């Protein structure tokens, strides 16, 4: 089969890779993250503007909820804007936080995607400022807890969230509830 001859390096598109972290109360899939970024860029810049970006999701790890997109070197600012304009995916509140930009995948992995990330599931009764919560998970020193209180649950529902965010040391387990000194 006849294959297209590769362009000389001087005529190839100058690429940039943008690493990002998907923060949400639900686990997101590669397909829905990719289409959310594309839809946001399309809505912000229109079809001609979107075509200039040459934007494509290259990799997304569902376990770590982070990945990277490729775009043209002069479209990085617009890609960052498009990612930060994504507010929800599938009815759940999200934030696609840009981690950094690099010219090669290897450097991107080394600089921004090398450490461990991910949500560690837990289930435990805790209290926060005198109210009862059920701890659902932790990540990077932060805890995510589901409120028992109906008023707070309603507030979260309006905000399209499932959990309240707190520092782990702010939450106290059942056995510590009477003693304010100890964190989890």
């Amino acid at each position: 089969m006849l294959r297209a001859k590769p362009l000389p390096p001087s005529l190839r598109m100058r690429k940039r890779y943008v690493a990002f972290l998907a923060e949400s109360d639900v686990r997101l899939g590669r397909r829905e993250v990719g289409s959310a970024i594309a839809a946001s860029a399309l809505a912000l810049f229109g079809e001609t503007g979107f075509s200039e970006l040459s934007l494509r999701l290259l990799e997304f790890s569902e376990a770590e909820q982070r990945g990277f997109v490729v775009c043209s070197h002069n479209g990085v600012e617009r890609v960052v804007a498009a990612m930060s304009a994504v507010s929800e995916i599938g009815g759940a509140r999200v934030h696609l936080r840009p981690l950094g930009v690099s010219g090669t995948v290897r450097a991107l992995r080394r600089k921004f995607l090398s450490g461990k990330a991910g949500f560690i599931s837990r289930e435990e009764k805790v209290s926060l400022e005198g109210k009862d919560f059920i701890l659902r998970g932790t990540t990077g020193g932060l805890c995510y807890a589901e409120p028992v209180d109906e008023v707070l649950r309603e507030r979260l529902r309006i905000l399209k969230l499932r959990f309240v965010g707190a520092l782990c040391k702010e939450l106290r387990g059942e056995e510590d509830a009477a003693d304010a000194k100890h964190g989890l």
Partner: protein
Amino acid sequence: MWMFTDLHVHSLHSSGADTPACLQRLARSMGTELCLCDGVVHEGIASGVEVHAESRRELLGDIRRYWRKFDFLIVHGGSMEINRCAARDSRVDVLVHPYAGRRDCGVDTVVAREAARSGVAIGIDLEDVVAARGAERARLLSQVGEILRLSRKYGFRIAVSTGARCRYALRGTKEVMALLQCIGFTEEEALAASQHVPRELLEKKRLARREVGRGVRLAQG
């Protein structure tokens, strides 16, 4: 190095979903300086209040009650009566989303002149723009563009904040700069609106709170 100073964030203490410490940790990791406007004084975080008033009389009462207590005072705009009254009062730091519930941008020539004279900043919440879709977002962007045009003509300041009620609505310095430049701000205007103006407002209030009489200020230390 400059960092985005976010003047309009709500925590669990008002209408938000996260504790102040959690929000502060996340904001730091994004390179943002966090200020909370819960109407509660937080230790170690610049604390402000957002005033929602139905009438001019109610607004003036609230301003009188709160302006010395907090590091900054934000007025929730919308009706032209509130927008004009807030823009005229130099005790107000930011008149936030003057376009709320309106078809126009909520800033006419009177509001623009008064805001420029009294030093009140007109606030734009990125959450409004980010959460909106389609025609609604287009309308909001045209309202923001109109405010920007009037700011260039009359010289009033613009302060950009996220208006975040949850951790996922916080934005980093680079994200805010990128978003603002996408919606028509020049680089200098984006820097001023996201970084210089909020800091100037906090500094102005810090000095004003040390005033014991007209033109008399307590010396430091």
